[in-house]
């Protein structure tokens, strides 16, 4: 009889301390983001309004095509002129949450720094948790949640490091990360422990890690999509001659243009869709090894499939006349809703093979996926 390695209690405790510290730092980051938005509201530049309000001067500003070979100086290299796609609103991107306000920008930078610190702490928490149980840190819903939020923040910070204009998503992200971690440490907490035989497989690393990454990226896409819907209706209102409320103006002015938001949401969703496909297929291969069939319409399988079909719908809708824009955005939200239900709903309300609650070889603790 080979006894599985015992869990390391002190590492597990250290992990808990790190996760709580991460939550504290994220809370500070949350206030810093709030401060960024508050100070940013002092800025009164209404670029979107200027671009869209009928009769506003800038509307008539011609789309100048620059002649690059101008002057007598010989160019270093020819410059490429890019034109906005015909048919889209010609709206500039907002300056971000700080709204161009210096103090706001300072708080924004502080918020990002705190987010980095919180991420490092959370990452340490996940790592020590993994070390304490000597396996991948996603054997139950608690571990899945802490890893998920860490990956989501990681994706956000990676995009920032790549100089993408995504700082505006920070407040929304950190808010939900705090909720996610709060849920994890209160409701879902499970003492660190070994895995049941059904989860002893290298597919656990492949299948679950890609599922977490997909979820994190889908989540960023969904947040952007919601903001897109707000910004789009704001722009439509302006274009139609309406006058949105001052709060809406203050907040939405600072976000990127709806076209940019839409494009960003599409890119992240499209980029991760093949990975989600892979996640399902990896799961099917594992199921083939563990349960004797690669596809058996288990609730978790059904909902991954529904999520997949919903995202496929979204991708097709974006290429279909009459479905572009808002309708496609609703589909994207629906698809993320399916993903969310697949995680929380199926784990909590529906019992199936993934819930590891059957008697027999699967008398197992509730595992994430």
């Amino acid at each position: 009889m080979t006894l599985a390695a015992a869990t390391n209690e002190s590492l597990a405790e250290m992990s808990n301390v790190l996760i709580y510290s991460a939550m504290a730092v994220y809370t500070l980051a949350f206030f810093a983001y709030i401060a960024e938005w508050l100070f940013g509201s002092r800025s009164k530049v209404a670029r979107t309004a200027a671009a869209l309000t009928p009769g506003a001067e800038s509307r008539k500003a011609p789309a100048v095509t620059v002649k690059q070979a101008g002057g007598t100086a010989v160019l270093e290299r020819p410059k490429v002129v890019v034109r906005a796609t015909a048919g889209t609103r010609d709206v500039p991107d907002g300056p971000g949450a700080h709204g161009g306000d210096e103090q706001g920008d300072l708080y924004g930078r502080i918020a990002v720094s705190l987010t980095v610190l919180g991420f490092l702490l959370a990452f340490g928490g996940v790592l020590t948790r993994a070390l304490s149980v000597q396996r991948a840190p996603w054997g139950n819903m608690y571990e899945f949640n802490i890893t998920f939020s860490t990956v989501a923040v990681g994706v956000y910070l990676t995009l920032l490091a790549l100089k993408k204009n995504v700082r505006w998503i920070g407040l929304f992200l950190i808010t939900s990360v705090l909720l996610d971690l709060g849920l994890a440490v209160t409701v879902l907490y499970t003492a660190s422990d070994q895995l049941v035989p059904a989860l002893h497989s290298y597919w656990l690393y492949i299948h679950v890690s890609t599922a977490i990454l997909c979820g994190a990226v889908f989540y960023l896409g969904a947040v952007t999509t919601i903001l897109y819907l707000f910004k789009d209706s704001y722009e439509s209102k302006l274009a139609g001659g309406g006058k949105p409320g001052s709060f809406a103006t203050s907040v939405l002015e600072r976000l990127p243009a709806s076209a940019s938001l839409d494009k960003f949401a599409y890119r992240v969703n499209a980029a991760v869709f093949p990975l989600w496909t892979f996640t399902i297929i990896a799961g099917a291969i594992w199921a083939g090894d563990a349960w004797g069939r690669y596809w058996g319409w288990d609730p978790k399988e059904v909902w991954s499939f529904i999520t997949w079909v919903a995202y496929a719908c979204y991708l097709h809708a974006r290429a279909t006349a009459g479905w572009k824009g808002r309708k496609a955005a609703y589909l994207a939200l629906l698809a993320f809703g399916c993903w969310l239900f697949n995680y929380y709903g199926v784990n909590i309300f529906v019992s199936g093979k993934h819930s590891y609650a059957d008697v027999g070889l699967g008398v197992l603790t509730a595992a994430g996926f």
Partner: protein
Amino acid sequence: MSNTTTDDTTKAGDDQELGAAGAQLSTAPDEAPNLPSLGVIGWARWFWRQLTSMRVALLLLLLLSLGAIPGSLIPQTGIDETKVADFRERHEVLAPVYDKLGLFNVYSSVWFSAIYILLFVSLIGCIVPRTWQFVGQLRGRPPGAPRRLTRLPAHTTWRTETGPEQVREAALALLKKRGFRAHLSGDAVAAEKGYLREVGNLAFHIALIVMLIAFAWGQLFKSEGNKLIVEGHGFANTLTQYDDFKSGSLFTTDDLEPFSFDLKDFKGTYERTGPNRGTPRTYEADLTYSEGAYGEQKRTTVKVNEPLKIGDAKVYLVSHGYAPVVTVRDGKGQIVFQDAVPLLPLDANVTSSGVVKVLDGYRNPEGKKEQLGFQAFFVPTFGGSATGTMLSQFPALDYPVLALNAYHGDLKADSGIPQSVYQMDKSKMKEFKGPDGKLLKKLLRPGETMKLPNGAGSVTFEKDIKEWAGFQVVQEPGGGWALGGAIVAIGGLAASLFIQRRRVWVRATAGADGVTVVEMAGLGRSESAKVPEELGDLAEALYAQAPGAPEPDPDSATAPESAPGPDDASAKTPDHRNPASAEGAEQQ
């Protein structure tokens, strides 16, 4: 201000001017509404057009995801029959309605099948013409340059002393080197790249069809049987050996893979401490097996995630339990029964129950033939008599106890009706009475014996407790095809989402002052940052071979589209550029 137009007019202008240049950058179907003409053929054509349109495909996809939902919430016959039976009992009104709607068999119901079959017909109706169209595009050449390249989403232009022909040749060589399909047409080079996007798209959709067929094939020819084997016993893969067996509608017994195996040893380990005490940690079954009728004997270990694969068949370890060895002696001390009796687990700690049946060889003290039956409860870890329960405290064999009671008479095993080996038909059985006049029962520790009253014999719970393992043997052909399809689908999907299909044109014409004007433009199917970026790189490379010439005096400007002086001056300051284009370019 000749270069400046508002968006709306450029849009209209674009469509006219791009014409063939923008055409067929994809094989996506046209979404033009098509009103039916009269007649059957007209209607059929209209129906077909509708079915293969993206819009209907989209609706079918939505329907498919909606249709899949009830199957995850309502118990399904194919997954758990006992749950369905339970549901039927609890919902007497709802169950018949669900039956009519096929909600207990969603994934094989008529309506669900109808959705996905329509979807796949729609898919095929979409793929076939797109494939032909794509083959046509591959055999043809990229379309020639539009008249005014400055109208395209990304363009650049400069003047050079190099002759137009040299520029065109250099451009042609450059584009070909960069992997473009390029050719000279008129005064311009036309080039296209990214055909793999279309290949990926088609491959992805074809792979989906392959996966569906493989899955359907697997379901039709599938077989699935269960067998419980006690340590030391064996199994040969024939229909009669299975405890239960299910198969697809086209399966024949000849399809069963010939092999046999013996269970040598089963090992289970469990968490000893902590909140998850008793949770299984490892399960391993050591087997010797041989392929074919007289194959060579091989050893292997089957674990939960590691089935034994023999040909098309896979042998899975799916359950386990204990099989206490019981010896029954008659009044003269003769052994009439000695065997390991597999008992079925009732809970996570393997509290088990079953029946010991002695069918032949027993004669009662009067010398009459009789059958014996013992109801057995077994716990691998007894909580002590103080707990008053026969519930196991731990799944491993820490303190095994067997509880037996005893009956004699006729087990009715020969009545022709198949009998469960785990249940006893007591209708013709009489109780052995204990000293208290009640049913004789006793808790036995390993090695202990229970005496039957009046010299009727004895039952011994032997010290050697065996374990049994439940195996599921599954044969599902088409798995390889499904996997192949899946891999192609991911590759195709990645190609169709990440590869840009784009066109580049380079026009070089001699200006009136003898200086060559080079114009380059790029066009992608979707608005992408990569098109202008790549155009910039290409322009830089070409610029090195056809360096810029000084701009002529604005008054004598002859370059096409060039603007009068004041415009040029304003254009040099970036602030005057269209803010959207400028910021868009930066952001991308």
